[in-house]
């Protein structure tokens, strides 16, 4: 049985977007016991729709355990007999930490003349956009409050993995181990596209009312359902859906209409509806935006990075090139041109890949923790290749890193499943001896890292 705790932070918090929260609350759950030298603390970072409730039950008649209950608990991969586990609900969420559904202090003080506070309103769309970096900052502030100087490990899956990665970059001396599961160094254009579809479905719901639906007494339920349905499809795989639903019909025959006919439609609607009942639309918007913005390399690359082949040319040049191009292309066959285009794309991709690697290497240059990176073979939202980008950059910097690519059928959602190999790797990694005084070759050659 677990009980969440609320921590109030009275000091103002300046966010990456340059806006400031005058104060903020964090709702937190902990499992296990902190040892006397506070060296056994593990921080859990949650994913998009997650919360502080990672493990255990809130009450005796609680039907569902916390979202990562198969990972966290006595004798489990993150063993609460051994570790003190902390899970924080991120700001901007709708599960108890300061977010769009909490009262905006500005609205309380706005009507000084009247004694009544009926005008006080929730933040709603006025809640500032937060980033992964902001979340990590609030988690570090919480660490100070808890008296935890160094985390034994920071662990997260998907969006949580991004936070873990950001921790290692922003507070290199405050964590010993970093577990990044089913995550990515940054979102691809396709990832952002899916997020945009989800956001547009909410924004275009007539009940959204510019985000002030709570004041208006409406709720963009349909938009949120649709957003979750799109998201849900990307978290699963074709095979997993086929195995679960196939083309099974609810009534056994075609109805020739737009009601729910296939089992998979019924499932998606059910998931969407359940989600829309307890998730705030503004939170969904800002969390997907935080995903899009995530980029741990920001601020680590300056002019020393080789620039990409310029796609931005001034107009006169473009015109000139176009006319030259036209005359040249007239003498080539269509196949030749196509081939050249393909080659250009390939070389451009390779260039971009190299640039990404350089940027990540720069970001990871000062990290001091050991990493475990986990991907899942069927995850196409954040495919194994994305995890491998992280691994390659860490290896190129000579940092200690383990990588496993777990064969699992559940797509991106695999990180929530009890897969023995995956659980075993996390458990082994967390209990393995920590070799602090590694001096990798690359660091010796380029003494840029601030080692202590």
């Amino acid at each position, binding site marked *: 049985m677990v009980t969440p705790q609320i921590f109030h932070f009275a000091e103002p918090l300046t966010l990456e977007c340059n806006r400031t929260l005058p104060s903020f609350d964090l709702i937190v759950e902990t499992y296990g016991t902190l040892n006397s030298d506070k060296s056994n603390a593990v921080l859990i970072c949650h994913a998009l729709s997650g919360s502080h409730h990672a493990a255990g039950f809130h009450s005796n008649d609680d039907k569902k355990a916390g979202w990562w209950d198969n990972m966290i608990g006595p004798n489990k991969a993150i063993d609460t007999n051994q570790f003190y586990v902390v899970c924080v609900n991120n700001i901007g969420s709708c599960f108890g930490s300061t977010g769009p559904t909490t009262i905006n202090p500005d609205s309380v003080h706005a009507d000084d003349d009247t004694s009544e506070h009926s005008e006080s309103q929730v933040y709603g769309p006025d809640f500032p956009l937060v980033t992964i970096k902001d979340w990590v900052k609030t988690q570090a502030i919480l660490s100070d409050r808890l008296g935890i100087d160094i985390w034994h490990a920071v662990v997260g899956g998907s969006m949580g993995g991004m936070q873990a990665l950001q921790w290692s970059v922003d507070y290199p001396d405050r964590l010993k181990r970093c577990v990044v599961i089913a995550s990515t160094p940054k979102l691809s254009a396709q990832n952002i596209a899916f997020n945009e579809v989800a956001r547009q479905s909410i924004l275009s719901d007539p009940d959204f009312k510019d985000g002030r639906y709570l004041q208006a007494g409406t709720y963009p339920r349909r938009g949120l359902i649709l957003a979750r349905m799109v998201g849900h499809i990307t978290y699963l795989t074709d095979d997993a859906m086929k195995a679960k639903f196939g083309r099974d019909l609810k009534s056994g025959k075609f109805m020739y209409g737009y009601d729910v006919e296939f089992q998979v439609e019924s499932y998606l609607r059910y998931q969407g509806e359940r989600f829309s009942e307890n998730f705030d639309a503004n939170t969904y918007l800002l969390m997907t935006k935080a995903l899009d913005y995530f980029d741990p390399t920001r601020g680590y690359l300056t002019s020393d990075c080789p620039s990409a082949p310029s796609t931005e040319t001034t107009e006169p040049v473009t015109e000139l090139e176009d006319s030259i191009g036209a005359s040249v292309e007239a003498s080539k066959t269509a196949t030749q041109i196509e081939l050249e285009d393909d080659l250009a794309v390939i070389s451009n991709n390779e260039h971009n890949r190299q640039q990404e690697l350089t940027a990540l290497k720069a970001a990871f240059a000062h990290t001091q923790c050991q990493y475990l990176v986990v991907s899942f073979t069927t995850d196409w939202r954040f495919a194994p290749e994305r995890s491998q980008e992280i691994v390659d950059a860490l290896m190129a910097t000579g940092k200690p890193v383990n990588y496993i690519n777990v064969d699992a059928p559940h797509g991106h959602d695999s990180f929530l499943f009890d897969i023995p190999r995956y659980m075993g790797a996390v458990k082994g990694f967390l209990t*393995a001896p920590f070799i602090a005084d590694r001096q990798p070759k690359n660091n010796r050659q380029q003494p840029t890292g601030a080692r202590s």
Partner: protein
Amino acid sequence: MRMDHQLAERWIAPQSHVLDLGCGNGELLAHLQQHRGVTGYGLEIDEEKINDGIAKGLSIIEQDLNDGLARFADNSFDTVVMARALQAVKAPDVLLLDMLRVAREAVITFPNFAHWQNRLHLGLKGLMPVSEALPYEWYNTPNIHLCTFKDFEQLCAKHDIHIINRFAVSDSEKGHTPLMKTLIRQAPNLLADVAIYRVTKQKPE
């Protein structure tokens, strides 16, 4: 510790950066890390062995050696080690060159197919050899490119690979007697079942 591991250790400089291909449960890496202050990575595909290596506090990367070493930059390691995996990869010659691209030196061990027991097995019995160094039946063996010491050295010569050291040993207990050791030195290709080579692409100074 395994004989070939003991010898591999001798040729790996303290504090150096090592890549261990087919590192298994990381036995050699762990030893090098503890006793020689070595850093580095092990590549492995066996799931259980990877987890064992992770639990030892090593850096283990899941990777199929057949995918090559493209993810590693030129000369990013001091030494690449590959113990008894060369014979199991699809293109051992390509991998060998790739190893010498990412590191200055490579330490390679592999079973000798020309070992007298193997010759006897095939020559007299007419059966594919099964021995301590090659403990598989022909139909379930992961070893698809078996070679002899002579074959390996010919491959090295063809690609201008310089052999710095060579050591032939026998896995069996009999192989450790002084007499056997002397005999092995006389006729390694006949009497030794495992060889450890230390090779480089760079001209010796």
